[in-house]
């Protein structure tokens, strides 16, 4: 069952990811990315990380991607100049580069000892993936990074407002 779900979600994520790159129109790319994010959220559930799965759907697919869609519609992607995607040589070079990067992975996997690979512990109530445990670690061990990242958000808000403001 776990295997079936992994291949289902993984296949959806891969196909959607290929669509993100292959589709010409930005709007459809964004929709494909949303599908990919939702499939990844299913994988997070399989990996016993329910909080991350929920945040993935709510924040990533729900907030960040909606921001993208807003901007895409604001800029009118269907008529605006989206530029030539079709520089043939460049696209071949990109695909070749991808294959080279993948083949670099092979020796690493070959050297990896599969028999001693760690096994998934599964969902345990109050285990590692639970919201309670996550919160305890986040607000004890990672308190300073948590506060620093809120400053980052503040900087991003101010920067966005300054950038998008129309010059008087």
């Amino acid at each position, binding site marked *: 069952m*776990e295997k079936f779900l*992994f291949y289902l979600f*993984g296949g959806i*994520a*891969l196909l959607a*990811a*290929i669509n993100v*790159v292959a589709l010409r129109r*930005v709007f459809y*790319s*964004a929709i494909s*990315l949303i599908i*990919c994010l939702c499939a*990844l959220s299913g*994988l997070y559930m399989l990996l016993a*990380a329910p*909080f*991350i799965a929920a945040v993935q759907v709510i*924040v*990533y697919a729900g907030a*960040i991607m909606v*921001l*993208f869609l807003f*901007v895409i519609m*604001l*800029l009118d*992607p269907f008529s*605006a*100049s989206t*530029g*030539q*995607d079709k*520089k043939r040589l*460049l*696209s071949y*070079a*990109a*695909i070749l*580069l*991808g294959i080279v*990067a*993948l083949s670099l992975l092979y020796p690493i996997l070959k050297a*990896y000892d*599969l028999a001693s*690979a760690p*096994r*998934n*512990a599964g969902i345990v109530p109050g*285990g*590692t*993936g639970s919201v309670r*445990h*996550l919160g305890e*670690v*986040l607000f004890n061990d990672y308190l300073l990074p948590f506060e620093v*990242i809120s400053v980052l*958000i503040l*900087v991003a808000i101010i920067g*966005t407002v300054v*950038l998008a403001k129309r010059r008087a």
Partner: protein
Amino acid sequence: MDIVHYLILSALLFIIGAVGVIFKRNVISIFLCIELMLNAVNLSFVAFSSFLSQVHGQVFVFFVMVVAAAEAAVGLAITIVLQRNRGTLSVDDADIMKW
């Protein structure tokens, strides 16, 4: 299931995203591909976190999401300014700083 399956999937997603960044010309498409790469990394973070029974990986995913949100907001604002000033979304036309 072992962790290698998840790592291979993560690597595939990352490389698809990287290929997209290289050969897309539209700024927003490039942003979408960057989001894809960030998500691939998130997947391997969660996989390691789950298989090693350590919660720290999930905390990092949390931080990556925050950084991705900030990056998307600022990047899209820059895109809007680019469109307003130069009337284009193509990265090839944003070449003032090009040597």
